[in-house]
């Protein structure tokens, strides 16, 4: 029971970001790192002390997830979006068995790290990680557009990125019931909606004439490329798992 409660907290099943956002004790990127760190810690804990699925905790995480979905659809800040997506996916991490949970969490964290790097690039180029005014980047900054599209596609659970494959793998390995199916469907479409909404306002849309667009530096390009390669390798692992 106690370990379940701890995992609920570590897997981002409790929206503790509200506290930090309100008090401003941590910056947005710090909240992202904190939740990432806690999640990693949770994964380790879960591997050491494997737990059965606890429905009440899944439901609590799902309630928190719905609230986070609402928050994610309100924000235009990429840092915030990164940890919102993490919190939104919490029920899945709690539902899945440790082996599947580890893989899905890993792919999610890698993708969100990519999104975090894009947020960092936004901050450097446009003064903030807020994308509200920075639309049409595919036309203006094709490299940034390409990598952001990749991360958002992965988050939207599109193959061949690992998130979708490992998501499927997790479902196949879990003993499902009606409630879990319902949660799975909501999380699946929620991820898609969040990513599609951001895509419409960033990679697509008309470029803003008031903004001087700056593309990724070559160092950033290399870093993103490495990240995408790792993601694709994870896809292969996921595919092998699914086929097995």
């Amino acid at each position, binding site marked *: 029971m106690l370990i379940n409660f701890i995992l609920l907290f570590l897997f981002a099943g409790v929206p503790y970001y509200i506290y930090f956002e309100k008090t401003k004790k941590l910056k947005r990127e710090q909240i992202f790192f904190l939740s990432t760190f806690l999640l990693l810690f949770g994964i380790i804990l879960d591997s050491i002390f494997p737990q059965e699925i606890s429905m009440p905790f899944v439901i609590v995480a799902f309630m928190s997830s719905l609230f986070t979905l609402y928050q994610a659809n309100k924000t235009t800040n990429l840092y915030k979006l990164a940890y919102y997506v993490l919190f939104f996916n919490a029920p899945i991490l709690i539902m899945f068995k440790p082996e599947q949970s580890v893989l899905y969490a890993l792919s999610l964290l890698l993708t969100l790290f990519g999104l975090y790097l894009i947020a960092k690039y936004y901050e450097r180029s446009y003064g903030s990680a*807020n994308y509200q005014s920075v639309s049409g980047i595919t036309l203006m900054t094709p490299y940034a557009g390409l990598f952001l599209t990749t991360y958002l596609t992965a988050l939207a659970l599109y193959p061949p990125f690992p998130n979708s494959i490992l998501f499927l793998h997790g479902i196949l390995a879990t003993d499902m019931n009606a409630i879990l199916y319902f949660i799975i469907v909501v999380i699946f479409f929620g991820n898609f909606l969040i990513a599609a909404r951001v895509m419409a306002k960033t990679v697509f849309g008309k470029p803003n004439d008031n903004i001087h667009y700056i593309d990724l530096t070559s160092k950033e390009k290399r870093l993103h490329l490495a990240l995408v390669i790792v993601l694709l390798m994870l896809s292969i692992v996921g595919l092998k798992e699914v086929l097995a």
Partner: protein
Amino acid sequence: MSILEKLNAVKDTVPHYWPIGAFIHHNPLKGFEHINFKEALDEAQSIFGGQVYMKPDYYISLFDEGKIKAEHLEKNLLKPLKEFGFDAFTKEAKEFMLDISPKWDSFRSYEELKINDIDDTLHTYLEENSIFMDKEAWIQSLTKNLTLYEIHDALFATSDKELIEKDVIEYIARFLDDNQTTLSMADRDLGMFNTFKLYENIDHDGDSESYVQKVLEKLKVKDIEKYFLTHILKLHGWAGFIKYRSEDDTYYAQQDHPSTLMDYMAIRLHFEQKYIAKEKINNFDILYSYIDTHKEYTILKLLQSKGKLTGIYNDAMEDTQDYKEILGAYVKDEINLDSLQIQLAKKSLPSLNLSLIEFSNFVNLLKKEEGFLWLKSLEDTYIIEHVNAFTSPQSYDKKPLSSTIFCLDVRSETMRRKLEESGPYETYGAGGFLGIPISFVEFDKAHQLNLAPAVIKPENIVFEIPVEAHEEYNAKQGINKTYKKVLSDLKNNPYTPYIMVEAIGWIFGIKLFGKTFFPEKTNALFNKMKPKKPKTTYTLDKLTNMEIEAYVKKLHINIINEVLITLSDAALSDPQIELLWEHLALDKELNVKISSILVEKLKYAYHINPQDYELQKEKLAHVGFTHDEQVMYVENLLNMIGLVNNFSKFVIISGHGSLSDNNPFESALDCGACGGSISLPNARALCMIANKKEIRQKLKDKGIDIPSDVKFIPAMHVTTTDEITFYDTDILDKEELEIFSTMEKDFKKASFKAREERAIDLPNTNEQKDLFIKTMDWSEPRPEWGLAGNMGVFAGPRDSCRHIAFRNRLFLHSYDSSIDNKNADLLTRIFDGPLVVGEWINLEHYFSTVDNKVYGAGSKVYHNVVSKIGVYNGNYSDLKIGLPTQSVITEGEAYHEPVRLLTYMEAPLETVGKAVENSIAKDFILNEWIRPIIIDKEAKKVYSYEYGEFIVIKELE
């Protein structure tokens, strides 16, 4: 002022938009031509937004290339500097324009703000003079040209605009459809608004005007005129098209299903009212009272919707509700950035002895004026260069073998030059449509093509008729037409494509594969399948009254026969049919036994009645020309170009056209002065007339003696490949044919050389073959450069410009002022036709280049043909006006060099003055939408018309 008058007062803000099938180049700011060019551009910018000049970087690179000379820039700079007392700082002003202006935006940097102190005095000065201090004025400027639903969307994150515009476009695209769909909208004959009432189930008894009045009252619109303009600007392409068709009674679609701009306005306002009624803030009164109590929030949301709020403020908006504080920080930062910009710019000009406040005014003046100053300096540099070339003495052999009169177009320049270089040939340029406006009905076609500038409505109809057997042609053509009709019906029907793709989709694959990988062979194969058109001639002479009556009678009797055979068993003899016709058409007593139902059917369903009889007679009365008209057109043409004696053996009149595949903008590459069609029919008609003995006799009486052995031969210049094809050469005898074929070889050589020169400028063209492939390549977005690059017109003798290689950039109109009369009628005619069309072409290219988003059509890649009247982006968007990016831009850089039409006239100043006074072009000439330059060889002076006066720019020796 009535509602209609208010709409009429603003409708000219958008130009006419003609259907794309007959693409007419036009000035997108036509409605502003009553104002001076520079002022008009400022006003247009405040209405449409976007750019009206190229960016400083562009001009600076031209300056570096030497295309803009420093002396012209300095001279032009002096005028505004003097006006504002900065004339002592010309050197610094030039330095600012060259070195600092390109970096101007980079001075407004948050990073720099962290490390630089802001001057308090300057900050206070800028603050006092900024709009930020007056929130009401600020809101007013932010809501300028915004509809109620747009403001609502901005304030409350709704998406009414998307829904409203989509609904508007869906309805009007369906209503205005010109046979693109097989399922047309029903009841269109009721008119746009009345049909709309049926579709939207609107319970309103009055017309569109009264409906508009009703909705405006509901929305509580204060300034109706302004609101009409706001709505027109939302989809100004569609508005421009509806405006065009509502003002052209002869446009057949307008006759069939009429529409007015008021109908369009009613539709727009209906949807606005429909969607906004669901919102809490659903009229301007409620909106204004909301804004009154939420000024800061309103400003921030409006700034956000316009993309003017940077990330940090967007974050702040998300995190806190204290909008006053956020706006305060924004204003502070903005003024700090403005101050910083000025301070850093001042630092870059250490020699300038001005206070920061004075410098701020100095810089503001330069930033406001720089676009125009660069443009004028570029034009001035070209003008001096051209004038020097035009006035350097040249002489040429006066006994050429042929004189080729080219239908005026920049694209004939290279060809003319190469032709003159290839042998004893001289060339002339004559105003497009060759001065003969005709309504042409091609053989085997049913519709009339107006081959004249859009402003002229041809009074004479010319039919193309075969002069040899054409049964085989008819049979093949019949099969082709049926095949095309079946395919088109299958493709456009909403249900059949499901089956069609599976069943016969692969057939299209052959064409697709062939056209992609073997364009030449595929093209040759399909050409073989096309029937060969028989030799034809034109109906050029007027019919006599008796002939007209006989034709109409024959037509009616044929219809009666057809009806009797198909609908009735009554067998009538020929005299009886004649009596029946007399009863129907001439209202004579009926002396034939026939059912009254059939008689009624013939009268009303088949229109055989006295009214139709008169109508048909009137129509036929327009066929052909009277002898006097024929003489007049040939005389006008020859006089206009100054070819009145010393005729060569062959006078070739060449029309022009373009060849391309899968190109909705194809007609933009044809003859602009022929309503976007090829000008071959005009050339053929003129040659046929000029070869008539009786016409030559009458011309001789008028002082133009064309020897009997001179032959007029029509030709067609294909601008994509620079090939010239001759027509009607069967009038030549054997001896003439021999000489002609030698000449033809020289024409071919000239074509080869012209292609060689042109290929250099055309992307992906390594050899001559590539130019031909471009005509058949369905994926080619740029089959030729068309009129891109056009920069001027020269009206004067060819000898003055024959030695200059303009590389297809000037319209060269032949004109001899010595044969013009005191009233300058010839020059006036050039102004009224070619100059008007030239200005439209020039300014369309200008604006499509300076801001393709606002004035152009965007990339061809996203275009879809809509309703067969134009193109739009994707599934729905505004109708794209102007030229696509591929027509003026290459690899992100402007290919077309945007300058006003440099209009050189070799004539006495007095003659030009008369022509300007008499011309319909007076407004845009005097308001400097073109750059008039007069080369007065009699007075030995060259004048330029600028800032409202003639200035001598060169004294001739």
